[in-house]
């Protein structure tokens, strides 16, 4: 293991090819595949190649081209897979949202409930453009990710504000995760995810020695000192508060999980994981006993087909039936009935459409695409030369992974459903924009990590010398 993996960490980066042409090649696929999918939907639903296909293809191609050129110019050594993967998922997401826009059932539903139907795909295309713009901005402004280290405590303040803000706005569909400013509604949790990762990275980089070394050994594990427990308890309490006041299980789980992962990476102490699991378990059970919203979710997860659950919401049952009806090969794009889910069919439950129309084969491909993004993120963390970059990269990757797991696990009935969106694929401005920023930061870190080092500067980090061994 050591010989092959150590190669991938830092040493391999020296003199590494930039791989920009690989990225370009992959991007071509990432644009062409969604364009074909788009044509496929049109042929299945209206028996003709959709008129918007050219515009859509050009739009997606343009976004990809801008992204690629900016990376080529400003982050030439960046990981070549991240941009094509995100583009492919974003493109397919647009196709899926456009496909659900064509659903008569959803159009009728919107007319019955809101008195009118507006297609979501054009909006999503606009959000994607804003997302790419933010991605470009990140690469242009953030010349080196270590600059973010300066804003550790400002990040904390901003993250807190973002997390607390939704409490003052009315709940939408049972969860207070929205902030509405004029005509826009924003899901600040999506942005807080990135900002809080910045804070954790900066904080843990400073405090990790204290947290790691000052501990007592008890029954084979290192127990942290009482005062070092402070931060973890604070974050724990905060995620519980989010759960209670914003009834947002997903965000709560995401932040606590993110913190435990980063704490573990920073300190290398397994005891933190044990603590983290115990505390989240206790917190979840504690809240579930008196919070009806959480109880409902658990009930719906355990008995999705029971009459009482179906009377409240048949979403999970419909989602499961969509997956089952897709079978191994799926019905084909535009030919399923995943729109039976109704509410949130193109956001939280968009994977059900993937499952029904692409089948098991396509769904596994989607999951592997997400897995690849996470893998590239963790690899970036391994390759990064500074602890802050390592922590930030692994934090962002872990947040991405946990979000994918929580959403996909929820709609597939593996875990209770939480209100979160599938990165890039699901409809929602905040989600797409924030995730493009996340990819931007990862690309920046990976560029720094893979850039040929001018000279091996003396590194205070003992760990770093370890990986130089062949």
């Amino acid at each position: 293991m050591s010989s092959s993996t150590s190669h991938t960490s830092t040493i391999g980066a020296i003199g590494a090819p930039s791989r920009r042409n690989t990225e370009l090649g992959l991007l071509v696929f990432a644009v062409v595949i969604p364009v074909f999918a788009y044509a496929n939907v049109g042929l299945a639903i209206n028996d003709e190649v959709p008129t918007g296909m050219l515009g859509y293809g050009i739009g997606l191609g343009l976004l990809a081209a801008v992204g690629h050129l900016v990376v080529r110019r400003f982050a030439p050594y960046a990981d070549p897979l991240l941009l094509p993967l995100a583009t492919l998922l974003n493109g397919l997401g647009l196709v899926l949202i456009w496909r659900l826009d064509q659903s008569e059932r959803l159009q009728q539903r919107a007319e019955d409930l809101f008195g009118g139907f507006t297609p979501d795909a054009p909006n999503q295309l606009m959000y994607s453009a804003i997302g790419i713009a933010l991605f470009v901005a990140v690469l242009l402004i953030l010349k080196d990710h270590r600059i973010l280290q300066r804003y550790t405590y400002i990040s904390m303040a901003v993250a807190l504000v973002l997390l607390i803000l939704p409490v003052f706005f009315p709940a939408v569909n049972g969860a207070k995760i929205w902030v509405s400013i004029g005509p826009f509604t924003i899901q600040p949790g999506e942005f807080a995810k990135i900002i809080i990762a910045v804070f954790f990275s900066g904080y843990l980089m400073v405090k990790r020695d204290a947290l790691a070394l000052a501990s007592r050994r008890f029954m084979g594990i290192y127990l942290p000192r009482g005062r070092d427990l402070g931060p973890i308890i604070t974050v724990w309490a905060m995620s519980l508060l989010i759960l209670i006041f914003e009834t947002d299980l997903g965000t709560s789980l995401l932040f606590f999980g993110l913190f435990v992962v980063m704490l573990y990476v920073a300190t290398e102490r397994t005891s933190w994981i044990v603590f983290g699991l115990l505390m989240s378990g206790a917190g979840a059970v504690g809240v579930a006993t008196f919070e009806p919203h959480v109880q409902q979710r658990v009930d719906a997860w355990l008995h999705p087909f029971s009459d009482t659950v179906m009377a409240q919401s048949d979403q999970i049952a419909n989602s499961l039936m969509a997956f089952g009806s897709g079978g191994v090969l799926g019905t084909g794009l535009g030919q399923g009935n995943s729109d039976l889910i109704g509410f949130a069919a193109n956001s939280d439950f968009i994977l059900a459409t993937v499952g029904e129309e692409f089948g098991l084969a396509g769904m596994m491909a989607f999951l592997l695409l997400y897995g690849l993004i996470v893998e590239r993120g963790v690899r970036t963390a391994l390759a990064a030369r500074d602890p802050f970059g390592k922590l930030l990269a692994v934090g962002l990757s872990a947040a991405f992974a946990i979000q994918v797991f929580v959403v996909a696990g929820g709609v597939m009935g593996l875990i209770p459903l939480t209100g979160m969106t599938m990165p890039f694929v699901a409809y929602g401005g905040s989600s797409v924009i924030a995730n493009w920023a996340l990819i931007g930061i990862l690309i920046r870190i990976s560029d720094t990590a893979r850039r040929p080092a001018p000279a091996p500067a003396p590194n205070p980090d003992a760990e770093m010398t370890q990986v130089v061994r062949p």
Partner: protein
Amino acid sequence: MNKPLRRIAIFCGLLVLALLIRDNWLQYVQADELRTHEKNRRVLIERYAQERGNIIVDGKPVTGSKRTTGSDFAYKRTYKDGPMWAPVTGFASQAYGATQIENLEDGILTGNDDRLFFRRTLDMITGKKQAGGDVVTTLNGSAQRAAFEGLGNKKGAVAALDPSTGKILALASTPSYDPSKIAGNSKNDEKAWTDLSKDPNKPNVNRALRETYPPGSTFKVVTAAAALEHDLYDGPDDKTDSPLPWTLPDTQTELKNEGDLPCKNATLREALRVSCNTVFGKVGADLGKDKMQETAEKFGFNQEQFVPVRANASVWPKDMNRPSTALSSIGQFETATTPLQMAMVTSAIANDGKLMQPYMIDELRAPNLDTIEKTSPKELSRPLSEPNAQKLQEMMETVVQDGTGTNAQIPGVTVGGKTGTAQHGVDNSEDPYAWFISYAKTDDGSPVAVAVVVEDSDADRGDISGGGLAAPIAKNVMKAVIDSKK
């Protein structure tokens, strides 16, 4: 810091792996179960995606399909003479599922049945739309009409069988409902469905198959069959040596006849003709519950019948003391039967003791009219020997010639029958059930056996008797069958 990083990488890998495993579980292992789940609307969408096959009576469909708009169902079921045929067809509703034949033969009607697989595949390749097959029933349109119109706005049911094959010729139940009105999923259908479910007269119950009534005196033919089969008496004209009044065994209670009847030491024939409770009560008591049970079960009691629509099991109580056995033998106490069961009893007697399995689906047809499956008549049991059956026929014919059943006489045709008036309710406070069972006999054997029950009536209480209310309906049904054979 790289060791924990690798572990985190593995952890993230495990998260993805868990999702992949769950996905395989959902979309491969559980796929079929979820795809055909009763709450999965796709099942209905598929059911109504093309014109549904038809249910055929006398070579003509009694169902149809109509193109609909404004819904995800392309076609809607329609019915001709819906209320009349509802007990046969059941319904296929976009909103409320399907019942009876519509449900049991759904695969053929939608074209999804495995036996149509080859054709379906061929159609898919040649680009033809999937089509449903037809279900050809055994029913006789004019007999059904006679039964349905005979019941009119009275509450009741009719079941008629072809004794030699077991084919169901008529299956009527009133009050009925129009399945066309609940076939869609509009607001009107919803209202019709709510009204139907709330109706105290229960029009949605198929009384011919699913309602069990006390059979009253019609059960005496079963008791008579048991007496002959177990050699209690040799023939219809043996004196039965029964006293009048007759006290129920082990009690001080006298069993009463309906009026001042010549039942003292009457022959079986005479006792059946005037419907003596005392004689048949005593026969039942003398035979004992086990012998009675043996004969009753050979006729089909205590067992659900599948025609292929399920019919409730008729009841001959298994745990009884001697007085209860006597009461049960005259169709009281807990004895209860479906109209179909009494038609089976009659048909077994008319068919010289051979009980044929009743059925109402003659044939399943592919969309191109090829036969996929044809039902062949099957013997269910032999409740009584041929000579005994003929003795019993003589007795039942006497009932129609100059007994309680004269209303069922058809000129030029031999008719055997038995009336019944079953009291029920606390202290017999509710309207009695009027029963009539009968068969007709021509030179080629017996073409029809029928059982009629009329639940209640606004008519005079004294008027309610099998002979008065039920026998004319039975007569018309028999006549319709005989006429249609000419």
